[in-house]
């Protein structure tokens, strides 16, 4: 396996990476040879920034999907580490097991005590086996609900970070009621009294995403997607060919920008230039600032009013003609 494949380099990123390499080499050269090339480097840096912003402004839907799945993209636990302190992970659904693909715990964000939960993917094969590629089982959704009820009882706002290709399709998942575990969460989350802030940080795969996705604000990161079906699944239905996923991504209107235009989400959360995977720290700063801004607004509203507004918000989603 070559380095590019290992690092998950996407084709359209190649020119960016080449230029980055050149700048890096040039910097090393100036240090080794004690020559001042600052001006040259600055010019190349400008060129790089322009290349990045041009490239990223014009990505196709499928390219966004690829970025959302980038193997070095920050995951749930990266954000927990970067934006919270005193995180205590809480385990188990008290019925069957502890899902390692959907995690949750108590944490502090700038002094706010919160419950933070989300899907967790793995970086390599071994970790992905543990995390089941971010595909939760019913016990994951039931753990999430248990923790959300705990948060409601102790007046802790809920931060939900979505990043899943979908809920797991397997025998055990069906035996233990995958559908019921998601449906239950939809019903319960609609009336939980504390603020619920939902962020799609990577993949927003269908029911598995929505299962922790009902909230007061729903925000999708710039290069994340949120869709009723995976592009591969859609391609299989439309053209009997999963390889046509790029075409399917286009017709599904699943990017943050399209969803915002359709008024299906509240906000798009900017990512660092070139995508969140290029700068975890900066991506985390953006996320944290968005959480704090939205949390402040939501805390101004009384719990009953918040639930009423949340219902109205879900209630009005739909597009139809009435005679």
């Amino acid at each position, binding site marked *: 396996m070559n380095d590019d494949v290992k690092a998950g380099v996407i084709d359209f990123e190649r020119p960016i990476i080449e230029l980055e390499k050149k700048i890096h080499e040039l910097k090393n050269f100036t240090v080794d040879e004690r020559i001042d090339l600052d001006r040259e480097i600055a010019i190349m840096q400008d060129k790089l920034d322009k290349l990045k912003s041009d490239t990223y402004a014009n990505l196709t839907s499928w390219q966004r999907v690829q970025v959302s799945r980038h193997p070095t993209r920050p995951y749930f636990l990266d954000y927990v580490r970067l934006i919270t302190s005193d995180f205590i992970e809480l385990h188990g659904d008290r019925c069957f097991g502890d899902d390692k693909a959907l995690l949750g715990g108590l944490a502090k964000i700038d002094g706010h005590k919160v419950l933070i939960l989300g899907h967790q993917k793995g970086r390599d094969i071994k970790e992905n086996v543990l995390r089941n590629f971010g595909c939760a089982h019913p016990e994951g959704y039931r753990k999430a609900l248990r923790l959300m009820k705990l948060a409601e009882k102790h007046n802790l706002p809920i931060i939900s970070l979505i990043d899943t290709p979908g*809920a797991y399709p397997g*025998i055990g998942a069906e035996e233990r009621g995958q559908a019921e575990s998601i449906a239950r969460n939809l019903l319960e989350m609609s009336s939980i009294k504390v603020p619920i802030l939902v962020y799609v940080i990577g993949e927003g795969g269908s029911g598995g995403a929505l299962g922790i996705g009902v909230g007061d604000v729903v925000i999708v990161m710039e290069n994340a997607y949120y869709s009723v079906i995976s592009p591969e699944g859609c391609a299989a239905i439309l053209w009997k060919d999963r390889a046509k996923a790029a075409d399917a991504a286009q*017709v599904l209107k699943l990017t943050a920008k399209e969803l915002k235009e359709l008024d299906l989400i509240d906000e798009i959360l900017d990512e660092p230039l070139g995508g969140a995977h290029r700068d975890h720290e900066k991506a985390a700063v953006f996320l944290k600032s968005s959480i704090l801004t939205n949390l402040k607004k939501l805390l101004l509203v009384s719990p009953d009013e918040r639930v009423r507004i949340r219902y109205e918000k879900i209630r009005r989603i739909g597009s139809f003609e009435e005679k």
Partner: protein
Amino acid sequence: MSWFGFPRWKLTKKRSMPEGIWSKCTGCGKLIYTKKLEETLYVCPECGHHIPLTAQRRIDYLIDKGTFCEDPWRLRANDPLNFTGTKPYKEKLKADQKKTGLDDAVITGSGKVLGYGVRIGVTDSNFIMGSMGSVVGEKLTRMIEKAIDERRPVLIISGSGGGARMYEGLYSLMQMAKTCAALGLLRQANLPFISILTNPTMAGVMASFASVGDVIVAEPKALIGFTGPRVIEQTIRQKLPEGFQRSEFLLEHGMIDIIVERSELKARIASLLDYLSP
């Protein structure tokens, strides 16, 4: 069966599917005298297979004659994504509207079950696989909200292989949250919701309103689940056991309350309503 006694505008005639003297059982494949099937409520006298029904027929079988009143809202999908795959969504809609005589995949209204007043929604699997887009989500939600106003129990009969309707993208996914939120209000109002599952009830429909019944009733041998069996087989690369995701399997795993034969359904629902009605 007759369509008389319906305080309903138009369409009722068009809604019945054309049928010959003989009908083929979709279970065993045998040819059955159609008159006979009407007597058995379309349960095959040879193999006991519960042949799928149109939404209208399910209403006729469950609701007392002359009591059903369909909700007056006439909602139609408007293709918010301008979706084109192999065939434009608009054309699919038109074709299924023509085929079924329905505006979309659900009929909602009010009526009585052996005298017990209910609000009811029935999905029709003949209309884009009974999938839920904006119209299905909106009509069910309005129906539930009306039930709360009128303090009536809610019945929903589901038959959907399609789940959340792909052609409306995230609008469809959000109908799952919308219908469940409405059922949350119904629960707060202490009103019962009986969910009736028929073959098939899958994916986004099963992962929303169909799963949160106070009581969940299923027809025998209905396919019920989250992920379709083909996709599971492809994912885990093994054959699924016989009876997987069938009603009996769900009962065994604690996921539904009762399996009821079609001929018993009306009496059984009435008994449940006797216990649960406000």
